[in-house]
């Protein structure tokens, strides 16, 4: 089921990167270097501080998300406890949850046109990001073979 707020184009996009441990901060560090500092990016680093639960962190962030915002949540592992807790506590009509996060995927979505519906952006970005996973040695071998055949 897709979120229903897709037709609104003037909505503010907010983002959460939610991971086991400090991967989220690592991704944010890379984003800052490549695309520059972005507003409305929140981090959840599960199990780093045993006194802070994912639910607590989600609640604090969701308090800053209005019905006029869209919230994209990137999680690390489908079936993992972080994704499961996000699903349990944050699933609502203006929330889009994407698991299996990687850097190309986040960059593609954060840089996407704000006038294009999020459902469309997410579908296309996931497809593009999947193509970023490449066994590069094999690619190089194939390219070398092509050069030799020419």
């Amino acid at each position, binding site marked *: 089921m897709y979120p229903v707020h897709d037709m609104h184009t003037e909505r503010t996009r907010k983002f959460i990167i939610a991971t086991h441990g400090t991967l989220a901060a690592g991704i944010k560090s890379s984003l800052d270097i490549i695309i520059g500092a972005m507003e409305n990016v929140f981090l959840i680093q599960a199990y780093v501080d045993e006194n802070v639960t994912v639910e607590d962190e989600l609640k604090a962030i969701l308090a800053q998300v209005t019905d006029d915002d869209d919230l994209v949540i990137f999680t690390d592992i489908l079936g993992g406890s972080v994704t499961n807790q996000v699903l349990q506590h944050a699933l609502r009509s203006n929330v889009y949850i994407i698991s299996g996060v990687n850097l190309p995927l986040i*960059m593609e979505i954060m840089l996407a046109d704000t006038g294009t519906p999020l459902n469309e952006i997410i579908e296309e970005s996931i497809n593009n990001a999947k193509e970023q996973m490449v066994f590069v040695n094999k690619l190089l071998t194939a390219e070398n073979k092509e050069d030799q055949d020419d």
Partner: protein
Amino acid sequence: MITTDYIITAPQGMHARPATNLVKLGKNFQSVISLKKGEKTVRINSLLNILSLSIKGGETISVMVDGEDEADAATAIGLFFTQQLKDQ
């Protein structure tokens, strides 16, 4: 539509940071801006599509700009490829 060819002078080619800047640059214009390398054409509103062209130093690419503000857009894109890219 304005079509211009550029030789990529940056030794590193079009890597992530300049590609990001190109996406951001394109957001300033209404025109549809596309890059063509070989047989493949992509719009510059997708970082990963730009990177998928694997544009390397020394290669030639074509830029197509189509829209009401195409003259201004083509000028800005021209500056990007002739000056800014090699500094990134």
